[in-house]
């Protein structure tokens, strides 16, 4: 399990290549399911120029660890990875990367999706958007999907 909350931009594909090199490409993990959430340049009908992502230092990391532990208990998985940006983010930059390695595809797909849904609904992060005209607003609610 690897959880990282980071301020610097990252390339999800390079991150995955390195993570897999780290644990060795396991010849047991037949299935890898990955989700990457990227900052869009629009939200609720407005053009978004950039974003600031606040978190709760300490609780955020602990909470992500709990979510990862939950899926590791619920499915038979080989590895779980969560990477989440904080701080100043611009459109097209990755915000979140979730990856799950398993022997079987159903477990990988389902654990990956559950991780993303529970992260969206419960991990302490808050988005503050800056719109095209310079107006700043806190995002009230995540989109349902």
């Amino acid at each position: 399990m690897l959880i990282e909350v980071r301020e610097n931009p990252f390339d999800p594909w390079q991150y995955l290549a390195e993570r897999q090199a780290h644990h060795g490409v396991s010849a047991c993990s037949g299935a890898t399911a990955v989700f990457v959430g990227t900052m869009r340049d629009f939200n609720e009908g407005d053009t978004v120029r950039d974003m600031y992502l606040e978190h709760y230092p300490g609780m955020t990391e602990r909470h992500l660890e709990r979510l990862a532990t939950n899926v590791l208990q619920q499915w038979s998985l080989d590895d779980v990875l969560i990477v989440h940006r904080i701080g100043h983010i611009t459109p097209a930059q990755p915000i979140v990367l979730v990856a799950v390695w398993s022997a079987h595809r159903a477990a990988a797909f389902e654990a990956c999706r559950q991780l993303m849904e529970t992260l969206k609904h419960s991990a302490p992060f808050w988005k503050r958007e800056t719109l095209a005209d310079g107006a700043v607003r806190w995002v009230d609610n995540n989109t349902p999907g």
Partner: protein
Amino acid sequence: MSVKVLFFASLRERFGVGQVTLALTEPLSVQAVWQRSSGEDSLPANVLMAVNQTYAGADTLVQSGDEVAFFPPVTGG
């Protein structure tokens, strides 16, 4: 004999402060901590609460030395 109280995101901006320290002579509910630290009587339904970095309810009892946090709905991912 005190608790650390944290406000995040829009709540921090509303109160103009991210952290206050509350003197404590006896255990208090999270709701009472909200009233004393924010100066607001009622706890809004959409405010989330954590005690020692774990989600908690309004009735959870807070002891001296605890860390209490209030924050709006989360929007990560």
